């Protein structure tokens, strides 16, 4: 069946079995291999992409459910010549090692800052009515869906602080 997806600002028509996950559609049908598969079960975050401004695990959703949706993958965030602020912060703070979880971390972190800006509370937020402080605990909690076995976690938190304009720890 045909599904029209707006991926990284470009309209793409997908022809695939309706059981195709968004992740497999990106990787196998659309040639966008930046998003990674670490578990295919929504348990690791390697496949995180941004759909209509919200981060989701692309392995847990079917591509055909996203007809007309705006999808941003890591390929759409920045280019080698012009890295996004989050990508730049990962360079500055050495926020990765093997790089496999990194596309998911970057998409997740980018959308996460947006959630904070919009005042969505998390499990770590002291005040549920919004306006939370972007503490390390807040960042770690909000990023806890993105596994990194290389455990670049401390540097990822630093990178996110930096990208959010929170300065050095």
């Amino acid at each position, binding site marked *: 069946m045909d599904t029209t997806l707006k991926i990284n600002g470009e309209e793409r028509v997908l022809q695939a079995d309706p059981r195709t996950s968004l992740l497999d559609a990106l990787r196998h049908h659309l040639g*966008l291999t930046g998003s*990674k598969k670490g578990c*295919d079960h929504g348990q*690791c975050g390697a496949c995180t992409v941004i759909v209509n401004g919200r981060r989701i695990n692309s392995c847990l959703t079917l591509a055909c459910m996203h007809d007309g949706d705006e999808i941003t993958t890591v390929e759409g965030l920045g280019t080698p010549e012009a890295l996004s602020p989050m990508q730049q912060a990962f*360079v500055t703070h050495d926020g990765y*090692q093997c*790089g496999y979880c990194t596309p998911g971390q970057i998409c997740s972190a980018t959308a996460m800052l947006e959630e904070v800006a919009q005042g969505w509370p998390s499990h770590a937020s002291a005040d549920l009515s919004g306006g939370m402080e972007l503490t390390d605990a807040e960042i*770690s909690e909000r990023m806890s869906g993105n596994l990194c*076995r290389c455990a670049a*976690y401390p540097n990822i938190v630093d990178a996110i602080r930096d990208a959010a304009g929170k300065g050095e720890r």
Partner: protein
Amino acid sequence: MPKDGGIGASSKRREDVRFLTGDGRYTDDINLAGQAHVHFLRSDVAHGRITSIDTSEAEAMPGVVRIFTGADFEAIGGIPCGWQITSRDGNVMQEPKHPVLAHGKVRHVGDPICAVVAETLGQARDAAEAIMVEIDELPAVIDMKKALSGDAPKVHDDLENNLCYDWGFVEENREAVDKAISEAAHVTTLELVNNRLVANPMEPRVAVGDWAKSTGDYTLYTTSQNPHVIRLLMGAFVLGIPEHKLRVVAPDVGGGFGTKIFHYAEEAFCTFAAKACRRPVKWTSTRSEAFMSDAHGRDHVTKIELALDAENNFTALRTLTHANMGAYLSTFAPSVPTWLHGTLMAGNYKTPLIYVNVKAVFTNTVPVDAYRGAGRPEATYQLERVIDKAARELGVDPVTLRRQNFITEFPYATPVAVEYDTGDYNATMDKLEEIGDFAGFEGRAEESKRRGKLRGLGINSYIEACGIAPSNLVGQLGARAGLYESATVRVNATGGLVVMTGSHSHGQGHETSFPQVISEMIGIPEDMVEIVHGDTATAPMGMGTYGSRSLAVGGSAMVRATEKIINKAKKIAAHLMEASEEDIELKDGQFSVAGTDKSVAWGDVTLAAYVPHNYPLEDIEPGLEETAFYDPANFTYPSGAYACEVELDPETGVVTIERFAAADDFGNVVNPMIVEGQVHGGIAQGIGQALLENCAYDENGQLVSATYMDYAMPRADNVPFMTVDHSCQTPCTHNPLGVKGCGEAGAIASPPTVVNAVIDALHRGGHTGIAHIDMPLTPQRVWAAMQGGSPEQGEGHGSAGARQLGA
């Protein structure tokens, strides 16, 4: 002043742009024209006899190309084991055959029985469901103790029993150790489990096999830490393909941690099937498949006894370890509980008498092999836990007891056959006391108490043997391979360099740190150097990356090759400047004649090498390319001291890590930023082992922790901020860079540090009866211990149901 280039600079990673923009090229990103997909039908029982396999219905299903069973591999070699151990009685270990696809019997959950090759993965999976396999289920041996009892079912019918080997080290010390222990003023005994872990690199394993009709050449793309080793093992021992007809490529690899060292059946299958099916065959592991087919780590059960004299000097040490091998011998499995473990039992201490006995056991579980640290974490854990217990029993400060027994003179020959070349254990301990702010601990403990929490401080000192290894030595110890490393340095006419190294980077940042070394040696910018690795078609025969060996061994090979380049370039420069070769100096990319103002640039010399118009052709060849193989003279011995402060909630048993400090001595450091990341990663994995992770089997051999919902991986909110320091540097004395290796330190040193801290917190809270809790220290286990229950017998204990062993 921090440097901005060369050795010692925190150069930013050059893999950055590729990885951060989604442009990395990992094995699963490779798709070959016409490729078919394979799905493995795996055993869902731990032990059984295959009575029949009927593939007829499946074969007729849409898209099926071919279905393979064990019978297709009868004429082919098994998956080989690369290390042979000799038992105390002089017999070599029992070594079972490890077929590519199960034949006759299945021996663990996940053992592959059939392989379905189809046009799409979905079709392969559907067809696999239509295969009728009949298995007569046999009782499974999971518990190591039961596996060794006389009436235990045998994992391998053709072996005598389930004992792989019974290793004694150093056998000649045995009686003296027994005597010293029986005569000691004090003996501290501890029994413990080193829990079974799964390495879990975020990238699952992938293999793509390809075969060219016209030439008969094979190519395997695989997620490997050592493509040359795979080429050798698979080519020579399994498929009988000579190396010149087999190319193995390991492109970007998403983490390894040991588990991607080994040669796996799926690699051999895809390579074999590519020819059999006349088209490329691809396999990508699912996460659950990874849990039941990637080699696991650890799984030791140990009894350790430490003898002390009346002045608290360590006088003898005796251990008995049962090491789980799983159902088959993985590539380096036999070496882990023996040479990578027994030789480290001296730790940082001058204990004069040591005896280590290791019984390796076959069970119906996934094979166990090296995982980050491999053997050395097991040694450190036992030693540092028993020393802590001894300090508590004797009422002495744990730091003082350690310092009193530290080795302080180097080189030091231990009673377990290794010679530490250099180190300064008091220096790292001093540094630790400073960065861990030991002075402020009591205040913080008071503050925790006011909030109803128990705070504890755990410390540890460690040593590891890295940079493996001198080939002649490991050959004597049973290795069936040499452990040198290689590098080819190719200088181009315009002065840029390409280094083809046998080391493999899967997160270690070689593309960044290796050029720093060359930049320092020649005095040219780092971006004039490119690192090529991971392809047997380009790099010379190399042994790959594990055992923290890349810089110490691979980097040394690169230095040797670069020295040859510089020597030749000096000859050319001497000719160009009509000077004597002995007077030529190289600095900042300029060759000059000592005592004159004559000079010629690096680029002019490299150009002359390839455009040899004015060139000493009678003395030297044109071109500028050199290869070196470096075989180390000894292991390297990184060491250090770690401290952890935990807070324990007595209401729930929940442990949180409040502070963590690491003072490491890695010798010289090339890129401090990369070293810091490596230490963070190792510590996080060690914390995972100590508090979260456990690979568990039930008594029937079902793997009950085969997803991330059941196997607790450390997440961002479990990993504390850490203070890491590597300013204490005693450079390695036998490699040209003076480096020791940093990749495994964190995973080796942190588990006992965390457990010591929790036990300390419990004792401070009045729970003085709790001498030990087995890892992982989950809230449930801690809470049960506090209620007076048996902390060792927590559920989900996996194969360490053999806990009673040695009791």
